[in-house]
């Protein structure tokens, strides 16, 4: 057993350990119920979200995102972590659509002409568009848009 063989074996074990560890601690983006952008619970199916919105008489916030979009990261790390924003979001039913893999959200994305991330669309429970935020908006403007969206529904 040379030191190099030993070192190689140690590194191999470490690498296997790293692989297992990192795979199991990675933050869950979505499971069979929700997708978790910025740590919030978002629906992925527009029908589900709209049905719930009808039931609870709430507006819907649609968030178009992708894994690689830097401004989405900003939203998720900052805006969605803010207490005031979270309070307003409680008044909404949340719907997140991954533009790379829209699934059931495909037709809605086409309807909203959402062809690049990030985009937010505020709509009523019967799909009337209230307002639209294309691209990145500063936090206070984002908050005031959400607040006026609740009032307008």
């Amino acid at each position, binding site marked *: 057993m040379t030191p190099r063989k030993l*070192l190689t074996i140690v590194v191999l074990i470490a690498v296997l350990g790293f*692989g297992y560890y990192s*795979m199991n601690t*990675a933050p*869950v983006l979505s*499971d*069979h119920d929700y997708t978790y952008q910025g740590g919030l619970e978002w629906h992925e199916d527009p029908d589900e979200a709209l049905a719930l919105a009808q039931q609870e008489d709430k507006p819907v916030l649609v968030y178009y995102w992708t894994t690689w979009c*830097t*401004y989405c990261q900003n939203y998720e790390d900052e805006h969605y972590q803010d207490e005031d924003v979270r309070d307003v979001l409680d008044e909404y039913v949340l719907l997140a659509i991954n533009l790379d893999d829209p699934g059931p959200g495909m037709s809605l994305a086409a309807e909203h002409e959402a062809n690049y991330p990030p985009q937010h669309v505020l709509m009523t429970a019967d799909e009337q568009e209230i307002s639209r935020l294309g691209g990145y908006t500063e936090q206070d403007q984002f908050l005031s848009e959400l607040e006026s969206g609740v009032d307008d529904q």
Partner: protein
Amino acid sequence: MSPESLTIGTLLIALAAFASSVAAVLLLYRYLTNSDDFQRLTRAAAGISTLSLVVAHGYLTYLFVVGDYTYAYVWQNTADYLSLLYRITGVYANHEGSILFWATLTAVVATWTVYSSRFRGRGSRLVQSISLGIVAIFSIMLVSQSPFTPIETAFPDTPSGFVPPDGDGLNPLLVDPWMAIHPPITFAAYALLIVPFALGITHFVSLFRGEESVFDQWIHSMIQWLRISWLLLTASIVFGGIWAYGVLGWGGFWSWDPVETAVLIPWLALTASLHAINRYEKTGEYAIFAPASAALIFPLVIFATTVVRSGVFRSVHSFAAGGIGTGILFLLAVTGTLALALPLAYWLFKSEDETRRPATETWLSHRTVYHGAVLSFAVLAFISIWGLSFPVLRHAATGVEVSVGQDHYNLWSYPVVVFGLLAGGLYALLDLRRRRLAIAATAAVAIVTLLAAFITPSANWYLASPNPHDPLVYRLVGNASVLSIVPPAAFFAGSWTVRYVSRIRGVPSRAFKLRETGIVLLHVGAAIMIVAVSFVYLFTTSASVAVVGVGETANGGEPIVEDVPDSEYTIEVSNYESVEEPSIEDAARSPAAVLEVSEDVSLVRGEITDTETIENTAVAQLDESDVWLASSDGSASFDIGTEVIARGTVFSGDSLDSEAAAYVYTDSQNMGSLEDPPTDVHEPRMVSHEIDVTVYEGDTQVAQGSMAEQEYLRAEMNTNDALIERGITGDTYVVGQVDEGGASISIETYPLANQIWTGVTLMLLGITALTVADHRRKS
């Protein structure tokens, strides 16, 4: 493949596929039988395949330059308004063109080894056979998905004989000088890796068959190819980073986007391989790992290509969307299996146990430390491979999607980089034969590194901002100070410098000095780059401001001065200008060009050389040609001798029962003289809104220049040109959205951005010096 889609270009590729297959089979036969039959035929076949690919590639480039839109690939990736440089860029903008270029370069390298007298011996034939076999696979892929597919075949709805008047245009993000060179050098780097792959595979096949391996005879040439490949690949990654920095508009040059990560993997493997082969050449160590690593780089390149082209891993590189050829997946499976299985099988079943450790060898020997450094590269490569793969694997297995953010790559890689720097520094000092001093110094630096990890003058110094519920490793590494990269990097750079000085002292050979200079530049450059990369993102600042009414600053209007909120900045905006591409003068066709394309509505320019009235319609001949203007409602007036630009519906000459080939029906709204063209009716491809900005911090000017936003009307896409003011300590970066109404401008700072470029430049100089020095020593 229908017969009408077999164009001349596709035929050339088919010829190359046939000829390279013949050459590969003949070479394999000659290898197996160890005979010299068919030598002339082999050479001819290899030559023909290379020549047809070179001609096909040249022909495709020509089609792009002249804008022949009867080909779907040309139509999709270029347009009339683009300059020559970006027309050539279009050749590589998508899958088919890139693969053709890759195949062409590979064929050139492989055929060169067939013709050269330097590569003899039985194994050489197998190496050449494998290389040409890969060329054949590429060519077969290209025949089934050809860049020379006629537009009627690609889009069956197009009417027969239809010639599109203009191309669909290049992806706006690719209209950038850095992107013009990024794809060609990337594929040039890839092409140089195929022969090392074939050589590594052949080496193990020869060992299994009990023949003499040609690996050692080829090794000098191979090291040079690997070095040139490393030079090109490094440059390619850097150019991609510079492009992202300037064009994507968020000021970053690296975001662990899947494609960036994917291309980093072959780069790390290539770096590890160069280290291992370097040792092998000198001392015979790494007898299995060196050839195995040479063989593994190419499958990793294929893996990277799969990531870029597949859509399984989404990223900003989804430029080449659409299915990736099954050929690529086939190549990945075959090459990956071969490169992994052969060395592994040999190691398990055939290899003699490593020579027994001499009793004198200590545990912390020269060799072991070197091995530790090489392993660091392998571990870094694995971190990237795993980060790309496990979300896909896990999603496929359980349907649960997990996110792998930048933290995964940054925080796992960081300790490995620190370890690698310490090991590399220790190795350089051990070379000086001052063993105890070397170990003591390394231990001291390791302790200082640990202490530095706790020094955080402000919140910016933390490597990441982990949440309390994040995994332990993220919290441990994330809460360390970035200052901890400085001691190991300084130690590493210092050790290599000391080693350099002591080695060249008293050695007269200039080639040796050049070689050592190359080595020291590589390592010092790497240390500088690592430090700069660690710091740049943690200390960025950003402030933004909205400026209304920038349109009023046009044509020497009064500049607008605004204070930027929450900052010390003041910004002055002036000289708003909007530039249209193409301008109406450039977009208007000559009469001859109108007849060549199928267009319902044409924009035409020419001198009126004759006027007539036919069936109560005023008509005017342009440039004495068969194209006439016709007044559709009597409002247009035609005067002989004036040069006009007119837009109108095109009808054939029969509509007015005359000799003319075509009439362009226009009216006064759609016609004007050359001095006063009807600009309102012209829709450009792109409108660029440009402003001059000057930024002051307090009373000091920190940036001055122009910034712009381009609106691509047809692609419904905007790009932003940032103003980047480079400085010794960092860049001031001004970017934003601009149009006539107003601008929303961000002012950002990126400290140490230029030290990244400095470090990389030193590395590129180093590898060049090393390659040149070795070339001189041998010749």
